């Protein structure tokens, strides 16, 4: 199948290095300490953060750092075919772990000893790149909760189909059998915190695909920063100073 046509356009009309439209909103779950919706094209996720708060299970309490927990769940209606999935299947356990590790790397956990921070991500619509969208949503929600972080970790995926590196794969491109490289970076420190790839790829191609994904992360980071700034300005207006 042809994923990039001779004019250089992808199935959904994007150019190879073009991201899907991003949209984010902060403070959607009013009872959570921090929350955000993040959309990448048709992929839509909600993240809610509770904490830092008292550790629920005392045996997990750590006296030198905060305990970070994460749960990823998919709504029944999130995929094209309706499925009722059991909770805690292998895929969601793995994604929960990936998100937890990525977020733990940027939260200043040693500032909040003996506390617990819960991150819950809920996928409302899945159209490829849920992993990245979840990490981006979690970053925004953590920032909304006012949790101290080293940097705003952002994530984006890239792939390689029809000998063209493609940014931000959608569901069809993801299922095409090519490699799917998911990268998470700390944009200011310029460090990679998450890197996952399936399928095989020559060394030099991997470099360019990874580079492309990292560029995508930076674009996401700029967008997230804008959203946070705008949100903060609104808060300031509401406070009336």
């Amino acid at each position: 199948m042809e994923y990039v046509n001779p004019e250089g356009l992808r199935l959904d009309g994007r150019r190879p290095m073009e991201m899907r439209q991003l949209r984010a909103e902060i403070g959607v779950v009013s009872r959570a300490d921090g929350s955000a919706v993040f959309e990448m094209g048709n992929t839509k996720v909600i993240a809610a953060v509770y904490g830092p708060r008292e550790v629920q299970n005392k045996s997990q309490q750590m006296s030198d750092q905060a305990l970070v927990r994460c749960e990823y769940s998919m709504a029944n209606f999130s995929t094209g075919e309706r499925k009722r999935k059991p909770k805690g299947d292998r895929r969601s356990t793995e994604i929960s772990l990936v998100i937890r590790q990525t977020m733990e790397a940027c939260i200043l956990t040693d500032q909040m000893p003996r506390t617990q921070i819960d991150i819950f991500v809920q996928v409302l619509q899945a159209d490829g790149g849920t992993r990245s969208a979840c990490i981006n949503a979690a970053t925004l929600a953590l920032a909304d909760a006012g949790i101290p972080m080293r940097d705003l970790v952002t994530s984006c995926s890239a792939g390689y189909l029809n000998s063209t590196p493609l940014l931000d794969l959608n569901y069809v491109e993801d299922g095409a059998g090519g490699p799917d490289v998911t990268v998470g970076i700390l944009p200011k420190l310029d460090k990679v915190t998450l890197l996952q790839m399936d399928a095989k790829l020559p060394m030099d191609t991997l470099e360019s695909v990874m580079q492309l994904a990292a560029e995508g992360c930076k674009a996401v980071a700029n967008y997230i920063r804008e959203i946070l700034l705008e949100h903060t300005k609104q808060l300031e207006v509401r406070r009336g100073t």
Partner: protein
Amino acid sequence: MFTVSAMVGLSLGEKQFIKGGIAQDLRTDGRKRSTYRPIFVETGVIPQANGSARVMIGATEVIASVKAELGRPNPSHPDKGKLSIFVDCSPTAEPSFEGRGGDDLASELSLALERCLLGGKSGAGAGIDLASLSIVEGKVCWDLYIDGLVISSDGNLLDALGAAIKAALSNTGIPKVQVASGASPDELPEVDISDEEFLQFDTSRFPVIVTLTKVGSHYIVDATSEEESQMSSALSVSVNREGQICGVTKRGGAGLDPSVILDMIYFAKTISEQLINKLDSQIAAAEACEEDDS
């Protein structure tokens, strides 16, 4: 119990304040006993579904989606389609829903919704005409899967889910189906699903759910989770536009006097008229808004 009282940490003074306010018809957020919080409806939030809606009542937020699939009708009702409701509680709403923590509440809500909206096993009192889901009698019909998702919970989940399902159904388009003629009676007939023409449901007879929560000696509508933590019992009544009672569920431990129950049902009926009108105008506004966007 539908309440998630574990998370509501209230002091003795706060409890007294809530109860005292309800007794004086002035609740902590300034509402009267019979006033709803602002209701906001948005339709078409899940483009992959046949119909969907998001409903917010105060800080409570739920999403309902409708998906239609072809299936075989139930042998005991060959001329009717099937309708089922599943509810899921997302841990975003409450950390205690993590893992399997929300399953109890979710199955309780699903059952209560089926009881209130689907009109019994025969489906005779269902909010929508199940016969309209039949394609070939005894062979093919539409299975409608209604999925509810609780995103944020601040009490009154059942009413919110009922409203979201009503809005999602009125947003639903079921593709028109052509049945190939000439198939032998034993085989499954071939069907051709149109992707241009859609059938809309008539949801004008679809009931709304009104939950009355009894706190002290008074009952209130649209309780927040703080108020729900103080309830002794609650009665959920589903009422349609004609004022017919479509289902009743009583929850909570305390016993109720039969005359009080009848009183509450009568009160719920009066409240439901306002709620149906408010909901219908919100749904119409949401549909108009969606058409403007597209």
